[in-house]
């Protein structure tokens, strides 16, 4: 190439040589000493040279025209290099002119086309200058692009809406003692209205500058600088997303940090995460994707490449938090949060798949699905452990007063929240083994609840209820007094039935279960009456040996003993308490009235310690949970 340069003449020199040769040919042509053949060759050569001259002359003209064009464009490009202002800030005219200049350079390069650099001299010089100017312009455009994107990015700060706060406040401690009925009463509306917000787009960049960005993309692509465009675009947009996450107060936590968090704090963060996932995936990333489509839609794979590079880090950061949650211990209180997380991810998974549908998005898609199934497995495992925890919750001492055991409160209130997650749950539990003994499906009622009583969740709920029941039986055995065993079982089974009847749980347990369990607690009530009162009433019976006075005395002592004991016992449900008092009355009062009626003439009043009315009144003191004694106050 270098050799050529020394031999090959420049454009002007070339013109001179052609002119000189033509001159020589003319002179030769005038000579008479030449053969015809030689003359012919000379004429041919002459005409050849003439056309050549014409060509080079027009080429020369074109070159100078091209050179002018380049000079003009270069001037515009160089002028901005010393200007501290940004072109697109200086007005649309300026921007159009600048782009015009770049296009002129492109035309120059284009028109030099084939000859350009392999040629020498003028064309080559022009081509080099054009490439150089193009590089400077591209560098400048990249900067302008960054600036436009940065200056015109738009933030929207969505209101932090608490989604799914259904399972608020169910917390677990080893004693199960902290759960009160009131805490769980926040059955909140489910995300009916939230779901509508899907499919909404935001303008992440002021729409009025989109054409500007697009025109930069077009010219950079035409100049073969699309990679540079993409890198700059990615950098800015990735940073904007990153910043947006901090606006949403998304914290970056290592897995180790997450595992160290206290439950309350973790629960708050999970709720926040759910919300952020929703905002980021269905709103922000959808909008980002649209922006990429608007700007890079014509550039094939660059479009998806940019989108993925912009979003990858943030998506992985979000998924990592989810991963940390599944890594942590599977305590029962986590179940609802896990289900919330699972549900939001299941809801968003189609959107995710379409956002990252390209091959290069498979990494994110796979991670997303891995987390989704991890959360499902974790929820399932947590639920199973919950069942096991109930079965193995052992007490050493009997629960005082025979009232509602905290475990029952906890479990029932916990279960009451599950119907909200029915669909998810059925999906997750589908393949689990089902204990057939709990597969009570009723066919006899007209309502179409049969499907809900036979779904996997229904089996599992009933299975949990049945482990709870056997646990209660174990616990009841801790009481030395049979009657208290019955009271305890009656109270607790009644509580279970009530919770089932008063909530959506009834659809899953079914009428059959409810009937059966009403029967059970009623049976315990009957057993109680028999266990406590049969012996008391039997004191009144004439056994042939005991005189009347003694029978009164023994009855009173027995009654007082029961009174002293059972006023301490507790039936928290007023209706249930009243019912039991009534059935107790029905057992005791008629027998006593009868006894008094028959014997009142044979015994003086001082031996009759209690009238029938007294007894009736005293029975109302039973099961209130505050111990009383009759030894002094009631004595007449």
């Amino acid at each position: 190439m270098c050799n050529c340069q020394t031999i090959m003449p420049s454009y002007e020199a070339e013109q001179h040589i052609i002119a000189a040769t033509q001159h020589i040919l003319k002179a030769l042509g005038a000579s008479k000493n030449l053969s015809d053949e030689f003359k012919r060759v000379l004429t041919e050569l002459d005409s050849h040279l003439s056309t050549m001259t014409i060509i080079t002359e027009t080429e020369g003209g074109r070159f100078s025209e091209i050179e002018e064009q380049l000079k003009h464009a270069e001037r515009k490009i160089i002028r901005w290099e010393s200007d501290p202002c940004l072109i697109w800030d200086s007005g649309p005219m300026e921007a159009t002119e600048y782009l015009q200049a770049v296009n002129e350079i492109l035309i120059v390069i284009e028109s030099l086309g084939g000859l350009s650099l392999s040629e020498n001299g003028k064309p080559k010089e022009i081509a080099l200058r054009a490439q150089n100017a193009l590089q400077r312009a591209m560098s400048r455009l990249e900067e302008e692009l960054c600036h436009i994107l940065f200056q015109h990015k738009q933030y929207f700060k969505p209101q932090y809406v608490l989604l799914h706060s259904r399972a608020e406040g169910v917390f677990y401690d080893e004693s199960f003692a902290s759960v009160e009925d009131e805490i769980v009463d926040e059955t909140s509306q489910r995300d009916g209205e939230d779901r509508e917000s899907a499919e909404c787009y935001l303008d992440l960049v002021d729409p009025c500058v989109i054409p500007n960005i697009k025109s930069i993309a077009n010219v950079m692509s035409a100049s073969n600088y699309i990679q540079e465009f993409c890198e700059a675009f990615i950098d800015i947009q990735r940073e904007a997303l990153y910043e947006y996450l901090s606006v949403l107060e998304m914290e970056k936590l290592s897995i180790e940090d997450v595992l160290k968090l206290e439950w309350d704090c973790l629960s708050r963060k999970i709720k926040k995460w759910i919300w952020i996932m929703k905002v980021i995936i269905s709103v922000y990333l959808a909008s980002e994707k649209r922006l990429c489509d608007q700007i890079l839609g014509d550039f094939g794979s660059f479009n998806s490449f940019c989108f993925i590079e912009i979003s990858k880090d943030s998506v992985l950061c979000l998924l990592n938090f989810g991963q940390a949650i599944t890594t942590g211990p599977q305590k029962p209180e986590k179940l609802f949060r896990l289900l919330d997380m699972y549900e939001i991810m299941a809801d968003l998974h189609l959107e995710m798949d379409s956002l990252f549908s390209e091959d290069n998005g498979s990494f994110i898609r796979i991670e997303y699905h891995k987390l989704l199934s991890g959360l499902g497995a974790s929820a399932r495992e947590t639920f199973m452990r919950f069942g096991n925890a109930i079965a193995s919750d052992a007490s050493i001492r009997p629960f005082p007063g025979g009232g509602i055991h905290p475990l029952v409160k906890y479990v029932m209130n916990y279960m009451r929240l599950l119907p909200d997650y029915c669909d998810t749950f059925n999906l997750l539990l589908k393949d689990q083994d089902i204990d057939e003994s709990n597969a009570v499906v009723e066919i006899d009622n007209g309502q179409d609840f049969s499907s809900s009583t036979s779904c996997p969740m229904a089996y599992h709920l009933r299975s949990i209820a049945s482990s709870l029941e056997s646990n209660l039986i174990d616990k009841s055995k801790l009481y030395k007094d049979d009657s208290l065993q019955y009271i305890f079982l009656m109270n607790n089974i009644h509580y279970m039935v009530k919770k089932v009847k008063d909530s959506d749980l009834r659809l899953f347990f079914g009428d059959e279960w409810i009937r059966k369990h009403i029967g059970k607690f009623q049976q315990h009530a009957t057993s109680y009456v028999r266990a406590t009162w049969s012996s008391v009433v039997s004191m009144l019976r004439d056994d042939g040996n005991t005189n009347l006075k003694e029978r009164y005395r023994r009855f009173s002592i027995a009654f007082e003993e029961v009174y002293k004991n059972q006023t301490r016992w507790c039936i928290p449900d007023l209706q249930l308490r009243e019912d039991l008092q009534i059935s107790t009355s029905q057992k005791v009062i008629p027998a006593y009235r009868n006894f008094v009626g028959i014997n009142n003439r044979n015994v003086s009043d001082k031996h009759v310690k209690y009238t029938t009315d007294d007894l009736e009144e005293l029975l109302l003191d039973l099961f209130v949970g505050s111990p009383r004694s009759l030894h002094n106050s009631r004595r007449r």
Partner: protein
Amino acid sequence: MPGTEPQPSFLGRISIRRNQVSAMDVNHDPELEELELFQKHVADRFTDLLSPQEEVASTETLLSISWLRKLVDVFLCCEAEFKAVLIMGRDPSQICKPPLDRLIPELLDRAVKALDICNAVSSGIDSVRQYQKFAEIAVSALEQKPMDDGQVKRARKALNSLLTAMKVDDKEKDFKGAERTWSFGRRGNTNPFHKERAARYFRSLSMIIAKNWSASKQIQAMSSNLVPPRGGEPTGLALPVYVMSSVMVFVMWALVAALPCQERSGLATHFPIPRQLTWAHSMIGLQERIGEEWKKKEKKGSVGLLEEMQRMEKLALNLIEFADGFQFPGETEKMEEVAAQVAELAEIFRKMGEGLVPLQAQIREVFHRIVRSRTEVLEVLDHAAKISQPTT
């Protein structure tokens, strides 16, 4: 639903392997035999890492992408075998007794730290992929024939971005504050006389990683309580736990050293391994070689131990120097030299293109494997706790 199919049971796969192993047994104590076999396999694998077989030695240079892929494979193999030794066919109550009642929780704690390291390293791979992009731009510019000023400048710019991005990642801690607060506003209308150009943001490792997280502290914490079982102790499972922990710490350490990672100061010090163990020799050999490389890096102030990255950095510096002195059309001799360097750079980014994505996928596999194993060990612990509990 896609992705929710249960993974093929790991234990199922292992049991097949165990049967195969026990079929080969000639020793009378299968447990002891198994332990020795485990150690032997670990030793073989690390020997292969230290001095690869001749036919692959040229492609598997220490700390190259393909070497790292092999390293990660070694981890996965050791881990699978370890779990077989630890869990399969063993009386679960054994792992609740001393010294395992202390060693297992320590192991699980290390596993959690390793998960965070996997994330950090995976993010580091994305950084390298960004360098790769810049290298690609530079190569395509410099491959233009003949090379002109515009293209040389274009390449210079890309190479400069490449080096800056590398430095940002390497100096993550110091750079974060300064770099990230730079604003494009400084070049706007607000200050028309300001001549400074806008700063470019580069991808930063801190996008995924928690703010104060430090890779070197993690490694330190993982190895601080790593002590070989003493001779007097009933070894039993204590030894394999130690072996696996050493493998884990070593692999994480090597990955952190090789790939861009947040806060890596003091990485040259490595944890001590007693030489008398069969596998110790090659692991110590590797520790020393990587440690030396790290010291060199710190001395030179270069940015990464990944072999391809080191070469990329060197080539980028050379080519920038060339670009600064370039005048069209350039001296023939120089141009030939440059062409060779460009070809080398092209070769590196091709290798990165082939190797980084699979390496990243492997590291994710390590991540998921650790998660799974941890869950399985926790289950065994849970089970064992239930058995040992007196029934009430």
